[in-house]
């Protein structure tokens, strides 16, 4: 049974990647998960410098989901390389470093620094965090901006470059195309949906940051639709995510067009989810006589619409 896939020469043993911002720097989970058993670990978004993030409360639950406004608190790229990367390397994790900048030059600088670091396998470009004012999403919400940042990073690294797209745009497929045109090796989507919750008794927003990003099972159908749209727009591998809780959810994303997936919010709920997802995927492959998991990618059968004899 072959669950592996390859992104620009990087082979992942299976399609299950821990989502950035939901798994610390990976080392936090080393007690509960064999990090080398994962398809990859996308570490918490890193800037050049350390950041304190927003004041709490930083999360609030909503129906089948949650809002977060952490504000990209982080230890910065240098401390990451010194203090966290050695352990990730020792534990043989496939490390995808999520990078964030406020300017194009910062992305380029981060990519240069990380390309020289032993144990970094790919770069995920965070151009989609809804919770910080400066940079990041200003690239992700503009087609020229997306093209520019992907192109600039592409020039300075041999690592696979994976821009992470925001769903907070009208036509996500056009951003996928911009990323592919600029030389992206893959794309990941979706980041969280900009959202808000209010305490009606105090009339205050439930998050100090006022707005935050919605994640969890609540967003899954929208994320699946966006992966489907991107699959029809680009040839490069797609890493899909949004509320994955079960093996069936993984397969739904893959059939829609994802080559791999990331799991975020549901890892908070069940840190032992990884083994359960893998077992469920293997069961599915057995039941459907699949030897290679990648064979399901993009196989959604939409023929019913073409065959329909009444159409509007």
């Amino acid at each position: 049974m072959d669950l592996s896939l390859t992104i620009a020469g990087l082979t992942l043993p299976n399609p299950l990647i821990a989502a950035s911002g939901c798994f610390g720097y990976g080392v936090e989970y080393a007690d509960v998960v064999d990090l080398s058993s994962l398809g990859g670990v996308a570490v918490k978004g890193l800037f050049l410098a350390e950041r304190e993030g927003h004041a709490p409360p930083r999360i609030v639950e909503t129906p089948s989901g949650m809002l977060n406004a952490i504000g990209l608190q982080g230890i910065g790229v240098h401390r990451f390389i010194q203090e966290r990367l050695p352990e990730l390397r020792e534990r043989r994790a496939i490390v995808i470093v999520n990078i964030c900048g406020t300017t194009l030059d910062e992305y380029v600088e981060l990519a240069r620094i990380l390309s020289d670091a032993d144990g970094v396998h790919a770069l995920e470009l965070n151009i989609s965090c809804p919770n910080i004012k400066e940079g990041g999403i200003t690239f992700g919400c503009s087609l020229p901006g997306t093209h520019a940042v992907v192109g600039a990073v592409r020039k300075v690294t041999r690592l696979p470059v994976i821009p992470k797209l925001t769903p907070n745009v009208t036509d996500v497929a056009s951003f996928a195309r911009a990323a592919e045109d600029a030389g992206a090796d893959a794309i990941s989507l979706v980041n969280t949906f900009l959202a808000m919750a209010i305490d009606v008794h105090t009339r205050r927003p439930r998050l100090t940051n006022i707005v935050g990003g919605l994640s969890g099972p609540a967003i899954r159908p929208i994320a699946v639709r966006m992966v489907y749209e991107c699959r029809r727009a680009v040839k490069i591998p797609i890493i899909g995510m949004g509320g994955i809780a079960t093996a069936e959810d993984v397969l739904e994303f893959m059939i829609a067009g994802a080559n791999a997936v990331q799991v975020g919010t549901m890892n908070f709920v069940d840190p032992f989810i990884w083994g359960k997802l893998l077992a469920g995927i293997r069961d599915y492959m057995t039941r459907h006589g699949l030897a290679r998991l990648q064979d399901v990618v993009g196989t959604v059968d939409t023929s019913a619409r073409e065959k329909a004899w009444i159409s509007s």
Partner: protein
Amino acid sequence: MPVDIDAAVIDNRRLSADYNVLSLAAPEIAAAARPGQFVMIKTSGGHDPLLRRPFSIFEILRDGATPIGVSIFNKRAGTGTTLLSRVEAGARLATLGPLGRPFEPVDPPAEGWMVAGGVGLAPFVTLAEALAARRTPTTLFYGARRAEELYCVELFEALGVRVILATEDGSRGVRGRITVPLEAALRERPLGNPVKLYVCGPTPMMRACAQLAATHGRACDVSLEQVMGCGLGGCYSCVVPARRADGGTPHHTRTCIDGPVFDAQRIVWDAVSGH
């Protein structure tokens, strides 16, 4: 190393309309737990509420000497705690733990003074047991709004803990907040007689206790509760502003893995959210 157990509810003991003690069959957690650690409990089988809730381990349940489970001291406040107030024996709850940095019990001749406000009683049974095992003289200062909201005092008395109570309406113990008898006791105790404070309760009470401890030159640990997403350090939701152990500028520190127990002097109390 935390484990996740599909724990059967052994018993749900109702203390009042708002409080209950829930006993869970979780031998591995009970065997590994240290005083002041917590568990993350999934309060429903589905996606609402989605996230687990953190609870201090209230008691280690034993069959003879064998640890068989843990209990939690639950106060009904929101959706999750309401579900846990109603849950019946035989139901199963995913329970992850033990988690967090524990209390460090002091040895004699130092005394251990535990200061609890309301539901903040939760982490102190396990600490009282650890202190009793070291023969450390121990006092519980326990405050609530009124007499009916003081629970489980007998658990502490059975461990030989001296208990000092306070109620805001004066219906039991000292009238006023728990800081009233605490301050008096701190003032009376000669500086040469060491004592360590362990505090858990509402943020204003913990802040006041931290100030008293500083004024009287006593060591003070607090157990903090913040909104938590994962309990394992992954999400960065539960941060509090704290100085590093060696001083320096305060930074956002995760309550789940750097706490929940902190040296009170590390915390920037004016910036702590919560109630």
